[in-house]
């Protein structure tokens, strides 16, 4: 191992130690400062707690998955097994597309300052980061494989299934590295060819993930499970070859990469590295900072077809949605996936008990719907300009949220059709989802405006919980009409609070 490589390895170990220390700080201890015997005992105590917690959680997860999977027929289980390779394909899709736009290897400001000038160091850092990511994903894949094997009781040996899961995840994780590194290699010409080959590789990877499913589906009924199990061994060998090819590509391309391009594309990452801890306390704030910096880096997209009066407001909010398009993704995930996911349980087509985890998911994802009123937040947060916008808070909220609300309503409609289509209650689901979408906007307004009578702003998560709780109470209330009516009254009250509130 060269001196540069050893140095980078030492540096990464130091980084890992610092991260562990940050985590241990929560428990009031530290690896570096725990020198006395008592401190060491306390560290050991923490380690034991973590191991026991992990073991118990794993056992619980195994039990839960096994109970769920044993309910499946052998054919359905075979289909599920054949669908597994699609998971890493989907997982690698987003980073691969990202790799077409930005370098997969991100450098911190310290990396740029101390490693950026040494090509050997950068190459080693690339190998280490790629290997670390692939191994991490491989471990997750193996765990998923063990979970599946535990529940499905396959007809053949479990090892190929576990290996396939692990290798598929590793291959999926390495593909973005190949694509990204070839893109930032100035010696690979022409650029269009490199991009085309990258896209082809991506398409092949995703396409090949469908092969097991196709083979299994075409097998005779009653033999789907056996067909799926037979495929696992060749799939593992193919994936192993794929990983080897990917690794060879990384080894060949890494020395050719442009460090200048990688430094340039690491700008946002390097600048926001120091504030990553904010993500723990306020994920929304952190996300907004990152998106703001990305928007600044991209420069102005599209132009402002500005209208007059309210038309000018609408132009601004539309332009803002286009330029910070990541927010629309959040709105779509919220309206097309998260909200419709709970509708079957709310409308009595599944166990009502699952409403609780759905509501927890809603609260956990509250940063996503908050995006619908982001432009309103921006307007209200800018006192200099807000003072000179001659609109009341309700008008401002309505216009500022309109593009995001339209996207949310489209997403809700599609989501409800997909989740409720089989049950025949699409209309009711859509109405309830629309109420949640509109109500979410109102919750965003209440979080900014000082509401009359109570003379304070209302926490976004609290009002959202009340709204979703009302919709979720449909099984208890006995009718979706009643819950929809109560939700509508709450929304109307919220709108009145905003209209007569003080911003």
């Amino acid at each position, binding site marked *: 191992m060269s001196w540069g490589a050893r140095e980078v390895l030492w540096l990464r170990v130091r980084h890992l130690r610092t991260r562990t220390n940050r985590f241990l700080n929560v428990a009031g201890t530290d690896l570096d400062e725990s020198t006395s015997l008592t401190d060491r005992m306390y560290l050991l105590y923490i380690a034991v707690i973590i191991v026991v917690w992990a073991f118990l959680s794993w056992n619980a997860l195994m039990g839960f998955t096994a109970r769920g999977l044993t309910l499946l027929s052998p054919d359905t289980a075979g289909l599920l097994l054949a669908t597994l390779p699609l998971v890493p394909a989907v997982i690698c899709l987003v980073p691969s597309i990202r790799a077409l736009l930005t370098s997969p290897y991100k450098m911190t400001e310290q990396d740029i300052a101390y490693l950026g000038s040494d090509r050997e160091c950068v190459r080693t850092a690339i190998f280490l980061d790629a290997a670390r990511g692939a191994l991490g994903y491989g471990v997750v894949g193996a765990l998923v494989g063990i979970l599946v094997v535990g529940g499905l009781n396959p007809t053949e040996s479990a090892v190929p299934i576990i290996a396939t899961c692990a290798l598929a995840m590793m291959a999926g994780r390495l593909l973005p590295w190949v694509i990204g590194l070839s893109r930032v290699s100035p010696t690979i010409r022409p650029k269009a060819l490199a991009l085309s080959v990258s896209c082809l590789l991506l398409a092949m990877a995703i396409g090949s993930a469908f092969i097991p499913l196709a083979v299994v589906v075409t097998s005779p009924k009653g033999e789907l499970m056996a067909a799926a199990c037979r495929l696992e061994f060749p799939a593992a060998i193919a994936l192993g070859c794929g990983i080897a090819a990917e690794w060879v590509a990384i080894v060949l391309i890494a020395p050719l990469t442009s460090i200048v391009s990688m430094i340039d594309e690491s700008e946002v990452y390097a600048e926001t590295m120091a504030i990553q801890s904010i993500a723990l306390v306020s994920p929304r704030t952190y996300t907004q900072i990152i998106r703001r910096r990305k928007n600044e880096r991209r*420069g102005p997209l599209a132009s402002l077809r500005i209208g007059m009066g309210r038309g*000018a407001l609408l132009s601004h909010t539309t332009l803002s949605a286009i330029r910070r398009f990541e927010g629309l993704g959040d709105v779509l995930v919220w309206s097309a996936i998260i909200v419709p996911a709970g509708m079957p349980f709310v409308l009595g087509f599944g166990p009502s008990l699952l409403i609780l985890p759905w509501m927890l998911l809603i609260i956990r994802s509250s940063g996503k719907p908050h995006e619908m009123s982001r432009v309103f937040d*921006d307007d209200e947060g800018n006192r*200099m300009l807000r*003072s*000179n*916008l*001659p609109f*009341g808070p309700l008008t401002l909220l309505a216009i500022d949220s309109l593009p995001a609300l339209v996207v949310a309503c489209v997403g809700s409609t599609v989501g409800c059709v997909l989740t409720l289509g089989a049950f025949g209650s699409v209309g009711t689901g859509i109405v309830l989802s629309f109420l949640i979408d509109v109500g979410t906007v109102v919750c965003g307004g209440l979080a900014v405006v000082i509401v009359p009578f109570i003379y304070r702003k209302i926490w976004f998560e609290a009002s959202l919980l009340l709204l979703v709780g009302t919709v979720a109470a449909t099984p208890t209330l006995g009718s979706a009409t009643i819950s929809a009516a109560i939700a509508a009254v709450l929304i109307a009250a919220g709108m009145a609070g905003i209209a007569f509130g003080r911003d």
Partner: protein
Amino acid sequence: MDGHAIEGFGLPHLARAGLSVEPNPKLAQAETRADCAFTIQAVYHGKSNFKHHGIPDVVIETPLRHLFGRVVMDTILEAKNLSFSYARRTIWHDVSLSLSPGDIALLWGVNGAGKTTLLRCLAGWSRPNEGMVAVCGRDLARSTRREGSDVFFVSDTPPFYEDLTAREHILFLLRANGLSDRGAHALELADRFHLAESLDAYPSSFSRGMRYKLAIVLALSLAPALLLMDEPYGPIDHTSAVLLSHEIELLAASGSAVLLSCHQVPPELAATMQLELEDKVLDVKKSTAEMMS
């Protein structure tokens, strides 16, 4: 809209600034507040510093609603018995102040005297513990956003949208207020403040001085009845500072009132009033003799 309003409109202030007024023909047709955007042609009458900057004719655009306010009330800002405390510490108390159309007031005071706090209270951004602030006869505590604002406060670090360019800021603010015909004038003003080349960039990429100049352009293009500025001469270069002084005089000549805090004497600015925050009290010096002392 009758002729009386025109004749009575801020003429002494225009004369003081060396300007005369020719009503725009559109004015004769303006009957309601909806016709709020019209222009007054202020013709240059030989002010050397204007000529020095190559500004032979100046067009001042003033919303009609401001004109109504000034003609009828003759007072733009009325602050009575204001007190402000923060963390049990009195910042200032018993502050009373009145600004008429055409007034240019300079607010002095050492660091921490409460100048910014006073400006924030006058803009309606902060609430004083006691007292009342009225702009164009409207109590700020009771006015609503729907009525629009007659005040523009340029704080020492002006905030901007992160997803609009400088040009879009100007056009957006004007059009949201129904003043699209001022766009060309505003962009010309931006050019004079040396912002022309940066108009298509996000203000977040601007230096502090450029951000302040953009805020000045926004404020001047809206021509508010009351313009408040927090240390405007601090971040900008000398040439822009001289230009700012002239634009402030023009705005005041059109019937607005301007109040700005400062630590240095503004270049080539003929202030009509000096205010000093000292020992938690506002000292208003109106006469030249007082100002000189």
